[in-house]
């Protein structure tokens, strides 16, 4: 089945787009909205009272303009309100996210991937319990058991700035860079600044955290904590 995008779906498309942006850490959140293509792999149930559509056998949501695709074993979405998915992967030309559960709040413009998230793109391969993305803050957080192979790191939390490319590891953390293995204790922070070189993306590390970046992370974290309480 194929549907043509309708105006109420504009917010959903934006969220999907921003989710992909979070994954790729580039600012294509403000990109234009194009057609959204929905493909159901099987049964599709529509609740007329609530306007909630459930793709019970899974399906695909593709944003035509950017090529961002949400593929999941189970998808439910309410136009203009939310999208939830299970065993989902978000794929774009700049990144790939996999998570057992994905929830997109279309009103608050926030995405939560949980249950063990894997995220990869050039210069970045990371896993964690939860991925949190706040569109307004432009900050992605990975929380709980964060492990990264690119860059080699582990932390309790990792926060990624979409626009600036800054990363904050929250300790206890470990960060490996060549012959160095850096470890910080509980609550300690390490800032990584992504830098594009001829050999690819490299990171400069510093235990001195930029004030504005520290404040941005604090705001995003507070928002995540509030959302979690809900």
């Amino acid at each position: 089945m194929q549907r043509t995008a309708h105006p109420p779906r504009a917010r959903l498309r934006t969220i999907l787009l921003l989710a992909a942006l979070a994954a790729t850490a580039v600012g294509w959140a403000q990109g234009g909205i194009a057609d959204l293509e929905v493909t159901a792999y099987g049964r599709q149930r529509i609740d007329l009272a609530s306007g909630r559509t459930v793709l019970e056998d899974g399906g695909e949501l593709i944003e035509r303009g950017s090529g961002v695709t949400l593929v999941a074993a189970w998808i439910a979405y309410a136009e203009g309100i939310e999208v939830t998915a299970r065993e989902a992967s978000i794929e774009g030309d700049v990144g790939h996210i996999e998570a057992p559960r994905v929830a997109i709040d279309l009103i608050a413009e926030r995405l939560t991937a949980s249950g063990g998230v894997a995220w990869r793109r050039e210069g970045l391969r990371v896993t964690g319990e939860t991925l949190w993305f706040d569109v307004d803050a432009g900050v992605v957080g990975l929380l709980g058991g964060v492990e990264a192979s690119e860059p080699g790191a582990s932390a309790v939390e990792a926060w990624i700035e979409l626009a600036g490319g800054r990363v904050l590891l929250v300790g206890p953390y470990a960060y490996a860079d060549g012959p160095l293995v850096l470890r910080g204790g509980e609550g300690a922070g390490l800032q990584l600044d992504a830098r594009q070189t001829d050999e690819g993306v490299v990171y400069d590390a510093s235990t001195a955290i930029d004030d504005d970046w520290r404040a941005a992370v604090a705001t995003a974290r507070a928002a995540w904590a509030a959302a979690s309480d809900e």
Partner: protein
Amino acid sequence: MTRRTVLAWAVWLACGTGLAMAADGGGSEGCVPVAGGAELTVEGLGRAVFAGLSTDRVRDEALLSGGVCVEFSAIGGVLRSERLTISGLGDGVALAAADVVFELDAWTIAAELLEADEDGAVLVGVGLQSPEAVALAAGVRVDLVSGTIAARDLRLATATLWVVADEATLDGERVALQRVALTTCDCAPAEASVRLEARAAELDLVVPEVTLHGAELVVGALRWALRDPWSFDAANLALPLPPIAVFEDPDGRRGTLVGVTEQPVAPGVRLAWDVGLGDDARPPDASLRLTARAADADGGEARVDVVGASDRMRVAWRVARPLAEGWALAYAQRLEGGAWDEPVRDQHVSVGRTRAWPTPVAGVAEAAVDAEAFVALTAQTLAGDELVGTRLGGSWRLRLGGEPAGGWRPDLEVAAGATAYPAGGGPQAWVSVAPRATLTTGGLRLDLGHLSRWVWGASPFGASLDRLATVHRSDLGGSWAPAVGEARVTLAARWDWRPDADRPGRAVGLERLDLSASTSGAAWSGRLSVRVDAALAGVVDPRPGRTASVGGVVTWARDDWELGARVRVDPAAPAWPWSEATVFAAAPVTTGDWSWRPYLAVDLASWARGQARWWVGHGLELAWRSDFGVLDLGYRYDDGIGLRLDVGVRFESRPLELERLAATRQERP
């Protein structure tokens, strides 16, 4: 960091870190993570803790800051600095820092600059501190694999020495120096009028001891080459004086003797000599005794014993060669001439075997058997007649070592032998049994022993050669050191079971019963020593030849002051029992750099006995204090202790101060 700053660091270390290290036995503590800081592991180097870090991948370096502490894993050294740069993150890690403190073993090194890679660390503008020494060096290289410290242009001071060297290697408490000059003067070697210069030297800071190679003693413009190598104690330089003693001839023949008891003069060679002072009945004479012993790897042995005196001579030597399976062949010769009571000329050939083995018998750990057969051609002058003849004989000895039980360790020796005299006279045979037991428990030690020897027949030769007498005696010896203070009690007793020729029906009985007790401890701001001894055999069984006396010594000493009393009483004496009541004292007198310490001992009992010689002891000790140390020269004679000479140099300890070292000239003289 300026040199002044290095010094300030080092002095601070000397006052703080260094003293703390001395208190806890030295060594550096590891790096303690900074609160809220981070920890960095550098492959191939070690671990670092710090407050802050930033890396720059374009410049390929990392900057650590804030209480940076690096532990070098291979050597256990610790580097401390406020900032440290790590470069070569991609390949070949290197460290660089300024104003560093490097702690390695007992050494704490403060330096202006440090550069290090996986192999070593180079430090520039260096001050070193250990509990035993301080030093300055133009540069130091620490081997990060072996932990040795190589320094150049080193100036080092210990409590007693000032040293300069072109190169030095510091390995823990040992310092190897190249092209070195040193002095005990409280000044730099270049300024010292008396110093030692050497091609190389090893300095043990803890013992402390110095060994010089290619050394010269320099006094002003004069130089004397010293033997190579030459070692000396860096705390005391005792001159090699022979231990001269004054004593009575044990044989009672030569009267009072002055000489040196047996001393080693070369490997395997011992020498003793004395001079008889003579008196109205005896002319002065001299005596010398030389013994030499050598052994080879095959078990062969040679021994020479020479006694030369004004009126007699003895040369005795013996060589032994091992044969197969424990057998040995020996030849010995003994030649005596002059005023010996029974001079001997003897040629002796023997073959013997020694065998030892563990035994399966309960309570017996080991058994050993010695057996020997001999033939000898002997001449001996007895009562003016010369007896010449051959001797054929053999002996056998079994030793059984018991298993220790309950603190006791028993052992037993059984021996037998027989000698035939073909030239005349009956054979002589003997059997002996000697059980012995030793108890050792806590501070108590007891030795119980017995010897019985039965003899059949008699040698026609004298007792100085091989004539044996029957023996039946028991010995008891003991010592007890209670766990209180420094007290010690000893006991020695002997009982002779043979019939007493002078007292029919009775045994010879108690031959010796000696008791002594001593202790010492702090008293009246000084040290008090007390000793009491008693020879009671003559009291329990008063007979001619039995000793009977009770005496004691009390000594109080503080600094160079010494006061004491010594008394001796003969309880068996028929009249005046005091054989000695001596008071003695030594007191220091200091004038400028000179110290005098006269000693006098006066026997108050001598007046009562009507003897003219009331002073029984005298002495004088002289000390001259110079920049190079304290020269000691003195003697003490006392009837109770004999003669003691003292010649040597003491090196007075000075505080370890880097600032004083820095004020000296760096160059070698």
